């Protein structure tokens, strides 16, 4: 497979990355800014979500309606996400409209109007969506689990907290945009069909003159409760679990990935086999590796009717801990094939590649070629995974449940 990475750094420090892809007529791009919830002052939880909406309500010479109409006319499928560490704005579109789209995104990021009268609807929408989580317990239980698992301030939920959201003011949010949109640490990534010189020239012109004060990761604060239960009268008990493992930069990263894949990579993996197929305890059970720059965990979800909740939790926990007792050759083989095959499938998607290269740079300071990831997976052995598991015993879990019945964790 041909692999190419385009890379350039502007004088102000902003990084431009690109991965060209053959045979596609589309392109995706991503702006990653160190404006996640952890970087905000106390009392602003959810501000990132409000800002991400407010930015799109008018920029440069376009008012709210004109901006949305222009985005729609370019056929842009937009996405925005706020994590503990980043605010990311993404777009996917037909390659022919890339230059116009980039110019528009530069307006949105550099010259957002941030008008007072557009602030209230952005704030209201964030509050509505937060209230709506009560009707989505499956999603809510994982947010609750992460909020208890991560140390503060990395545990601030992207959806925000009602008290903070209600108290936010337009000026406070404008100030966050002025100070937290740190162009010296902005990462821009593009994947698909594009001309790198044209992209760089445009970004240089629009973003080159901007600067920023180098943002630093705040230190880890306190952690939440090991077990949290929220009662509701739903049909199921929704169980969220999370346990600590090293982050993406750790040398054992690929051992962890392989271990998680044996546990929950697909239908022949341990959790699916033991919890669902053999015992019929639930419909949905899965675990995944989730990383920030300096902290990571394996999160796990299972949903089941109240009388089966304790058993579902017990069997799931047992499977985590039983992993270190041994992994078969076949299991390891399937885990590796699954991981490699999903890599290649991602390489056919502009959105997946663009998010992949931006994430790599943010967390590792460089982009890993797919061939390197494949090589690293090749050298993982049963022994290396077991060695890791024998130093990470999965003794401690943060657990949250939502439903008519609590469990004994």
């Amino acid at each position, binding site marked *: *497979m041909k692999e190419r990475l385009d890379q350039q750094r502007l004088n102000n420090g902003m990084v431009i990355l690109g991965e060209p892809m053959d*045979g*596609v007529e*589309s392109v995706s791009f991503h702006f990653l800014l160190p404006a996640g919830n952890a970087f905000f002052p106390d009392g602003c939880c959810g501000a990132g979500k409000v800002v991400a909406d407010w930015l799109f309500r008018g920029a440069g010479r376009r008012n*709210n309606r004109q901006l*949305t*109409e222009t*985005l*729609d*006319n*370019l*056929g*842009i*499928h937009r996405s925005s996400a706020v994590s503990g560490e980043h605010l990311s704005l993404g777009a996917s*579109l*037909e*390659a022919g409209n890339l230059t116009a789209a980039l110019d528009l995104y530069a307006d949105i990021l550099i010259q957002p109007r941030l008008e007072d009268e557009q602030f209230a*609807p952005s704030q209201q929408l964030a509050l*509505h*969506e937060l*209230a*709506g*989580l*009560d*009707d*989505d317990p*499956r999603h809510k239980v994982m947010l609750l689990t992460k909020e208890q698992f991560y140390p503060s301030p990395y545990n601030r939920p992207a959806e925000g907290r009602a008290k903070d959201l209600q108290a936010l003011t337009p000026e406070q949010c404008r100030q966050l945009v002025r100070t937290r949109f740190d162009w010296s640490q902005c990462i821009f990534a593009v994947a698909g069909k594009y001309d790198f010189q044209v992209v760089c020239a445009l970004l240089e012109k629009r973003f080159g003159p901007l600067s920023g004060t180098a943002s630093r990761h705040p230190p880890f604060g306190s952690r939440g409760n090991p077990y949290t239960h929220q009662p509701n009268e*739903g*049909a*199921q008990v*929704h169980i969220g679990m999370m346990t600590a493992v090293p982050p993406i930069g750790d040398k054992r990263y690929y051992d962890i990935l392989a271990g998680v894949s044996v546990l929950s*990579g*697909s*239908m*022949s993996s341990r959790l699916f*086999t033991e919890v*669902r*197929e053999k*015992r*019929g*305890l*639930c*419909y*949905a059970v899965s675990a995944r590796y989730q990383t920030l720059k300096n902290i990571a965990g394996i999160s796990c979800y299972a*949903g*089941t*009717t109240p009388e089966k909740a304790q058993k579902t939790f017990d069997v799931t926990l047992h499977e985590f801990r039983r992993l270190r007792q041994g992994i078969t050759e*076949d299991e390891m083989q*399937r885990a590796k*094939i*699954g991981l*490699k*095959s*999903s890599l*290649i*499938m991602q390489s*056919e*998607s*502009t*959105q997946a590649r663009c998010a992949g290269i931006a994430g790599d740079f943010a967390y590792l300071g460089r982009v890993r070629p797919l061939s390197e990831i494949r090589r690293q997976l090749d050298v993982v052995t049963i022994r290396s995974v077991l060695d890791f598991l024998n130093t990470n015993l999965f003794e401690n879990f943060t657990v949250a449940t939502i439903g008519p019945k609590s469990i004994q964790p």
Partner: protein
Amino acid sequence: MQFKHKQLQNGLTIISEIQPPAQTAAMGFFVRTGSRDENAAVSGVSHFLEHMLFKGTDTLSWQQVNEAFDGLGASFNASTGEENTVYFAAVLAEYLPEVAKLWSQLMRPALRENDFDIEKNVILEEIAMCRDLPQYEILEDARALHFGSHPCANSVLGTEESIKAITVQQMRDYFARRYAPNNLVVACCGNSNFDVFCGHIEQLCGNWPPVQTQRQLSWFEGTRQKKTVRREMLARHHICLISPSVSMQDPRRFAASLLGMVLGDDTGSRYFWSLVDPAIAEAASMQAEAMDGVGAIYSYICCEPAAADKVMDIVGGIFKDIAQNGVSEKELQAAKNKVLSALAIKSERPMGRLMGLGLNWVYRQEYRTLADDIAAIRAVSVRDINQLIAEFSPGDFTCLAMGPAA
């Protein structure tokens, strides 16, 4: 891209869109069966049967099936709806023959009683899970309300009672009636060798006997009933509106889907500007669903309980306005641009092409290139859309609302 097609003597159709440079290939078995082909005694059997196919054959256990898929690094799954059950997988191109052989074997499942009993629990858990997802539940219930006595009213999952009552023999009978080779299409996209692919399918499926299968097609206007269900445990007010629309056999399905976009896309649509942008509702979307001989346009809106009446007034105003003034050239153009770029993004991967390829054949025995679809979308005029509005009166809808007291 090249299209190839072959029909085996027993009626099984094999189609393929070949993209030589792709690294992956995607394939699927499209079975023309779903909840509309069930009767009340076996409500939910199509979906339950879909789960049971993964439980193996006379020579493969469920463990061996799961291990075989995972050993190929396949990204695979299945889905059941009102009128199709689709089994699909994406793999690296070199593994296509293996995954084709595996699916072919699974299409003749053992349907063992002990597997059936265990899987019944999983289905019951899935039903319980959906009861905790009001945004899913309201769609199912609104469909039942809208379609009334028409078979498209049937629930895909079935109910706790119907699932508990189904016997393995009833499932075997249903399987024998519906999974006949002449009721199946095998589709493949990406980097593949058609002759080799057909050879594998023919070897494993060529001796299945054909069975007379049928589906009664009838147009249905919808009941246009209005109903509100009080559910105190909910935090939000959920609304689903359904009105009639064109079928999968109707060339106006492109216009219907653009109408849905103009009125209810998640940015820049009438719903967006009237409901979401001013934060009156946090979600408001509309989508046309063309089906076998029938069609519907669905809206889903979610808001705070106190805003329910206001939302319905605004929605009424939108429908009144389009009935009187139609849609504008400008909004149609924006909708087209969004649909066209979504098509380009979806077509990046063979998996993105597979569903369209298979379903075009299932419904119309037709192959359409990406360029055909692009041309059809570009050709839709404001007049086409306005004629649809005049003919189907989307403002005269079935409505189900669910939420706590305001």
